[in-house]
């Protein structure tokens, strides 16, 4: 490695590294010894404690989801002690005056009681709701982090699928949860859900009657949702979450590329003590911040909505935000897709957006790693993350999906937008319908161009170094801006990636001279591969750097030299290593453009 790549004195710093005193070796005794005698856990425990985790802020997104899950479970258990999952109608006579004497379900009454008559009940309820929102938000952002960095590649495809299922379960768990208080808003959501079920071809009315135990609303749905919300879905979520974490440990965490980080190692800090403190501390930080938000920002004030009754409704009825995309799909899907024939009704205007869009989006998401693996034909394990710009097509597809999701999400608020901005709801809805079709491909294209440009910028930086902002004038009066080559440590992140090449069809003429066109499958694969990789921008190779240094006819050239701190740039004339401007202080520095000084 060249001197310029290693900052001076680094070796010295390494020399006086403080090595902590190794504690005396002693055998396990006491309780730990007693446990190990019976379980033999000393070895796995020490393995886990020494496990190395890499550090990056984006790895905290999954942690936020994990800790929010813990918080939501703890506060959820608290709430079960006071909540009564019953649709039985009672008269309210608690301490919240505006509702006195009003008929409501026991579910609603007990939720109001938790909010007003149980000490600390409101804070627990609000922490529960806020951390549930945090859980889902963190899952979504975590998913995008994993997607854009290519962390789903082999060997992590299974974990991606588990994560996808977890995120789908999480939003349904959320829906079940906010439906439980049986308030006017959530009841309207259940009413819509019943309408969704009715739209199922052939079986719709039966499904609706089975789920609701008869006609809507009935008395069965609240207790049933309660079982789903506190037992069924949490059990599945905890099981899958455990598998998710175990697989993270088995695979060892991915890491971003950097000096010393390879596909065959993981560089970071050991669990004991660093991550014990950092991750453990982070649990408390997430819990603390969620609690502070819950103390200061009211969420879901059901006492203001009132108890559910099927005929009144509030303007601006919307589900919790994570169901927004599905609600938006319902608002955008055109009504002419309902068909009546032969005495039957096929209500695709409800069935598709309500019951097909969500599973379809999640299936595509879950299948993505397998599609990409097939397209690349790459069977290797990948533990180094991609910088999103280095996978332009994937990043473009991700932004395309994101824009599709966001437009559906915005559509769920079309009425609010119309009111706040004083626009016509019809115009907004029509525009969103058009945007849903036009924007995602556009977003794909723009993102891919941006990624390719960023890759070219990386190349430029490596080939021509960093602008120093120092102007240099030669003896002949020419001006240069001095450039500085990147130190090897910084350069590495810009040159380490591979650029996959599109797969080509195998020889079109076989050994006997007979033309073969390749199977349809092969041709499709070659075409998709071309779509993915035809426009690859390569990482700079050493040869190219050498060429950039020496080729005087190139547009820009720099002359690397171990002696030089600053580099000349922009001149057609190559300067020898002994050039005077190699010194730290150039002879002439242009300070005043008018005088040339």
């Amino acid at each position, binding site marked *: 490695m060249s001197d310029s790549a290693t900052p001076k004195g680094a070796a010295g710093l390494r020399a006086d590294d403080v090595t902590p005193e190794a504690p005396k070796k002693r055998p396990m005794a006491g309780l730990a010894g007693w446990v190990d005698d019976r379980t033999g856990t000393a070895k796995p425990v020490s393995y886990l404690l020494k496990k190395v985790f890499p550090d990056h802020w984006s790895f905290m997104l999954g942690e936020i989801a994990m800790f929010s899950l813990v918080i939501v479970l703890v506060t959820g258990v608290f709430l079960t002690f006071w909540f009564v999952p019953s649709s039985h109608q009672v008269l309210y006579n608690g301490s919240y005056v505006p509702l006195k004497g009003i008929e409501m379900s026991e579910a609603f009454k007990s939720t109001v009681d938790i909010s007003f008559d149980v000490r600390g009940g409101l804070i627990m309820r609000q922490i529960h709701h806020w951390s549930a929102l945090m859980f889902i938000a963190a899952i979504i952002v975590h998913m995008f982090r994993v997607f854009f960095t290519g962390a789903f590649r082999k060997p992590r495809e299974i974990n991606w699928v588990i994560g996808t299922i977890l995120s789908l379960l999480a939003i349904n768990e959320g829906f079940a949860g906010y439906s439980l208080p049986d308030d006017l808003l959530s009841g309207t959501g259940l009413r819509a859900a019943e309408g969704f079920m009715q739209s199922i071809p052939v079986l719709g009315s039966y499904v609706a009657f089975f789920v609701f135990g008869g006609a809507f609303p009935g008395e069965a749905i609240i207790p049933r949702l309660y079982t789903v919300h506190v037992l069924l879905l949490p059990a599945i979520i905890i099981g899958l979450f455990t598998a998710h974490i175990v697989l993270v440990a088995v695979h060892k965490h991915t890491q971003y590329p950097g000096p010393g980080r390879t596909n065959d190692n993981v560089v970071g800090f050991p669990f004991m003590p660093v991550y014990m*403190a950092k991750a453990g501390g982070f649990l408390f*930080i997430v819990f603390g*911040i969620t609690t502070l938000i819950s103390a200061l920002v009211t969420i879901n004030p059901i006492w203001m909505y009132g108890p559910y009754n*099927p005929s009144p409704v509030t303007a*601006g*009825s919307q589900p919790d935000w994570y169901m927004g995309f599905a609600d938006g799909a319902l608002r955008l899907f055109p009504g002419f897709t309902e068909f009546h024939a032969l005495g039957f009704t096929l209500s695709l205007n409800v069935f598709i957006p309500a019951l097909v869009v969500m599973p379809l989006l999640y299936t595509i998401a879950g299948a993505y790693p397998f599609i990409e693996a097939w397209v690349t034909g790459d069977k290797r394990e990948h533990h180094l993350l991609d910088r999103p710009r280095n996978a332009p097509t994937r990043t473009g597809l991700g932004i395309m999906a994101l824009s599709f999701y966001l437009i559906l999400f915005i559509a769920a608020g079309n*009425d609010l937008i119309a009111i706040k901005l004083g626009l016509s709801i019809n115009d907004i809805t029509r525009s969103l319908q058009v945007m849903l079709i036009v924007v995602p491909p556009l977003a794909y294209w723009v993102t891919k161009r941006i990624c390719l440009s960023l890759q070219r910028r990386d190349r430029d930086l490596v080939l021509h170094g960093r602008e120093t902002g120092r102007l240099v004038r030669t003896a002949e009066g020419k001006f240069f801006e001095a450039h500085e080559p990147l130190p090897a440590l910084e350069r590495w992140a810009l040159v380490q990636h591979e650029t996959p090449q599109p797969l080509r069809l195998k020889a079109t003429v076989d050994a006997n001279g007979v033309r073969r066109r390749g199977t349809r499958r092969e041709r499709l694969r070659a075409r998709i591969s071309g779509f993915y990789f035809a426009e690859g921008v390569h990482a700079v190779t050493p040869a190219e750097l050498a060429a950039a240094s020496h080729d005087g006819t190139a547009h820009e050239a720099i002359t690397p030299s171990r002696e030089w701190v600053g580099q000349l740039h922009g001149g057609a004339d190559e300067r020898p290593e002994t050039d005077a401007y190699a010194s730290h202080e150039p002879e002439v520095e242009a300070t005043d453009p008018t005088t040339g000084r």
Partner: protein
Amino acid sequence: MNEDGDEPTEAEVSQPGTAVRLDQGHIEGSGGIPERFTNPGPAPHVHRLADRDERAARRAEIQVATLFGISMVATVVFLVAYFAIDLHRYAFVPGIGQANLSNVVLGVSLGLSLLCIGLGAVHWAKTLMPDTEVAEDRHPQRSSDESRIEAADTILAGGTASQLARRPLIKYTLGGALGLFALPLVVQLAGSLGPLPKADLSTTFWRKGLRLMRYPEFTPIKASDVTIGSVFHVMPEGIQKTPDPLEQEGKAAVLLMRLDPSDILSAKERDWGHDGIVAYSMICTHVGCPVGLYEQQTHHLLCPCHQSTFDVTRDAKVIFGPANRPLPQLKISVDADNYLVADAPFLEPVGPSFWERG
């Protein structure tokens, strides 16, 4: 990656004989230049202040201890506030307005108690715990060939030992038994979840002669009470006394409006109404939300859930939004006392579509 050779020295890179022109496109190594850059190895460790200066380390220690101390104080505040603050006391909180004092104090103290533990632990880790990165080797996920063969052998040997392949009678009966055993569970669950819908989705409480009642007061409405431009939320007489009022009201809710008869463009609508008074089902034909928003100038009904818009001058036809069918109209007239009554039940199912509705 990049196991090939060492980092080229600058001298190597600069060898004039190996220079390659940039306009030759993407170039990989030639003439002794490696194809790719090699990993420069870990970056030099930069010491933190607390590693070099014991006073800085001591400061960090005090900061961590202070955070833990604040946490303890906040916990005590929570415990005191839990007992001391009246549950129904409201106070002005800056930035929020009137708020339940107990909730705010309990939440803030609990939040600080938790947050300070977290901040303290992280600060401790970042300032005082080792910050020298360590590397752990990865190994391929795949088991060794021997293990894979052994596993496959074990499974095969077990299969053979059980004589499953030799005794097809067992194989097929086992398959049959396992294939069927779940059926009772499925049938019990699916069969007992709810009753069959029968005609329930197609009928409502409305019958000929039932008075239209104001909701929720349940008082009858005289035709003269309904002025042009007014709108009434209406239920059939006696519905609140049924054993399942919520289920019945969910289907029977009706919106009553009076238009200038000359504004009504549909002859059927005019016939089914009374002197410009018309009654329409309130349950949206999209997914069943109550169509609660009436715009009296345009005579449009808007569903607040998904913005389906119905034009009351044209027999509640859908003029915008995701719904497909018009709202069903209830045929009304007046009785001897001039109160509005239903002239017939709804002639088609109300509410969202379903397969067999026709």
